[in-house]
């Protein structure tokens, strides 16, 4: 049953009473109806808060609400607008999931903001295919300084058919292993460096009465991170590169079969916390399992550090948290330095915007977005900006050890593979997440997974 049944019931009650009510009351109801209608219509467009000098803005940008990036970006835009009053940027905020749907609809309707914020990869590819974003290759050639200070690995998801369509910015967030040191000391184990060591730890922690691994399985992309690393460690980065390039039969490789089998073996051995399929990542319940000492290890994005510092400062700063790269797989073909995760966030220019607006957006790209203040603000929040040559600033931070780890991991990675659900086209990504959930629930076997996913290639 949905809310529509309620509205239907209300309307039928109204029509039922019409016969009894007077003519005047009835007319006043008619008069009210358009008001209700327009109020409903307004729900679609209003809602998000605005910042910056919205009224005289030349270019527009939509951005995600949520700290700390909301205030960092607001400050950056305000600073840019003060310095460039005739090229001001108007900023509007949306909640994450609402934004993802809204931006697609807006682009399809030709009503998108000048600056299109996103995550690159497959979604950006669909914008490029529809001719909705500008080719920035020429602009980067003219602004070599802008390009050269950013991590080289961050440009992959911004590239479609050899051309650059987006400016990488903000922070790099690889996926890393987090460990609860207290629990490791309690059972007298050392951190796993290989897959076999990790698997061997499962019964050790089970005996001690804690879950070996935390996982927010209901969110699906959380389980996907395990496959991302296993595919890479076992078969190298080419395995997923072939899948992303939609080569025929790309999922059907020995490496894929091995990785999928290893994951199911780990599930069967009780590696993940009991009931992990019910645990959600959007409530940070998976992180809570780690810092409350109910799970010993967790594979998660680098963004968790700041979140855990916020929720359990004592755990993070009290030396109970440690972190490391994903274990290697003995005999695997992948480079152990390889990383997966989000190489950055991306901003493109809407092709239907006016030339004046585009110029303002590009000026903002060049001078406004990754300023020294912005870089410092991200570092203060335990995040690594995608700018090279900031080792000194990282070392001066309270979280120096963590920041240095992430910075080294991201900047030294031979290949930094983008999160699969963002690298693939939206339709393939949806099928992938559904299949991963079934794989982890042991309701399909690896071969069925491969067959289903092969059918989605090129969609």
């Amino acid at each position: 049953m949905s809310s529509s049944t309620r509205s239907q019931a209300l309307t039928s009650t109204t029509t039922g009473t019409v016969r009894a009510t007077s003519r005047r009351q009835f007319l006043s109801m008619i008069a009210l109806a358009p008001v209700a209608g327009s109020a409903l219509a307004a729900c679609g467009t209003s809602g998000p808060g605005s910042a910056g000098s919205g009224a005289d803005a030349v270019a527009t940008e939509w951005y995600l609400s949520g700290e700390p990036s909301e205030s960092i970006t607001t400050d950056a835009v305000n600073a840019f607008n003060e310095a460039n009053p005739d090229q001001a940027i108007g900023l509007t905020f949306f909640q994450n999931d609402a934004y993802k749907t809204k931006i697609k609809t807006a682009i399809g309707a030709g009503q998108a903001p000048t600056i299109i914020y996103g995550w690159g990869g497959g979604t950006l590819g669909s914008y490029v295919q529809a001719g909705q974003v500008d080719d920035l290759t020429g602009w980067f050639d003219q602004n070599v300084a802008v390009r050269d200070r950013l991590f080289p690995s961050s440009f992959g998801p911004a590239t479609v058919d050899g051309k650059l369509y987006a400016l990488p910015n903000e922070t790099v967030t690889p996926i890393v292993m987090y460990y609860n040191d207290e629990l490791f000391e309690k059972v007298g184990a050392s951190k796993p460096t290989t897959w076999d060591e990790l698997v061997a730890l499962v019964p050790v922690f089970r005996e001690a009465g804690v879950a070996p691994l935390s996982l927010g399985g209901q969110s699906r992309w959380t389980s996907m991170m395990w496959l991302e690393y296993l595919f890479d460690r076992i078969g190298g980065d080419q395995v997923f590169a072939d899948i992303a390039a939609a080569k025929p039969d790309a999922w059907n490789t020995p490496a894929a079969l091995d990785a999928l089998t290893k994951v199911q073996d780990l599930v069967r051995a009780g590696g993940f916390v009991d009931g992990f399929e019910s645990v959600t990542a959007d409530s940070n319940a998976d992180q809570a399992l780690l810092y409350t000492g109910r799970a010993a290890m967790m594979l998660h994005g680098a963004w968790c550090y700041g979140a855990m510092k916020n929720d359990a400062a004592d755990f993070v700063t009290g030396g109970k948290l440690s972190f490391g790269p994903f274990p290697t797989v003995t005999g695997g073909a992948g480079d152990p330095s390889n990383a997966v995760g989000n190489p950055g966030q991306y901003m493109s220019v809407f092709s239907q915007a006016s030339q004046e607006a585009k110029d303002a957006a590009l000026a903002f790209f060049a001078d406004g977005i990754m300023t020294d203040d912005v870089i410092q603000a991200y570092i203060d929040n335990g995040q690594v900006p995608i700018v090279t040559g900031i080792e000194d600033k990282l070392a001066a931070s309270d979280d120096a050890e963590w920041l240095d780890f992430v910075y080294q991991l991201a900047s030294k990675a031979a290949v930094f593979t983008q999160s699969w659900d963002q690298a693939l086209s939206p339709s393939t990504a949806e099928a992938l997440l559904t299949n991963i959930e079934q794989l982890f629930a042991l309701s399909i076997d690896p071969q069925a997974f491969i067959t289903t996913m092969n059918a989605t290639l090129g969609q």
Partner: protein
Amino acid sequence: MSVSATTTRAPARSARPAGTSEHKSVKTGSVAWMALPALLFFLFFGGVPLVGVVLLSFTQWDGIGAISWLGIGNWTSVLADPVMWKAMGLTFGIMIFSWLVQTPLALLLGVFTAGTQRYRAFLAVLYFLPLLMSAAAISIAYKALLDPNFGLAASLGIPILVQNWLGSPTLVLFVVIFVLSWMYVPFHSLIYQGGVRQIPKTMYEAASIDGAGTVRQFFSITLPQLKYTIITSSTLMVVGSMTSFDLIFVLTGGGPGDATRVLALDMYLRGFRANQMGPASVIAVLIVLIGLALAQLLQRVGGKDKSSSQMEGM
């Protein structure tokens, strides 16, 4: 979003004029213009999007680029898709079980709260509380309560309640039906309460004189007199189940796997997650057609001239 919202509502709305139009023509032609504003609103917000969706179902469109004509390709692929048939089965399963759970509960609660005692009025207020909350808020609250590690059961230390509620493909169905019922039983109780209060007292008085007890009175007077209330409530439940989306979307997102991927959710995920507006429109049209058919069917079950027979035996 607006497209999906209007299309999913279409069956619920369009179900009504079919039932009332007969009366209108019989009564007076002079007030027909009064229906004009409502008709215009319906055409603009219900009819136009519906035609748009039917057209879209024959096209290929990712929601961003150009729309290209495809013919019946979407229809053949969706009708051959096991995912859609599973969603269809789930939708009907949830519909039937929801009806089986909600109708007796709502009926009994409605009869109970129809009494005039003060404690009943107080309890009625408590029963109706879920009506005041949005489906999204209810879903988020239940998600937190059902968390196996930090949820209600773990906090209270009741091991039997620590289950993989949202992660097990079988358990999750019961959870969904439970939460749906928790949310909508108050609404249907309200309908039954109104229905019971309209039953003339004289009937019960006569029955008491004839020596009928409470149970006998319930089955011989209350239940038959509520026939049309039951049909109204059932129509709302059945058509509502066809379009049921918000609560399941927030609670499970269709998961685990596709264990709770009902038809309306399947439509949303195809259209707005996977960017396949064509197949999504096919499903939208299917929902409209099935919803209309079910509403019609229930009206038939109730008999055609229902308002005249309401006071049978009086």
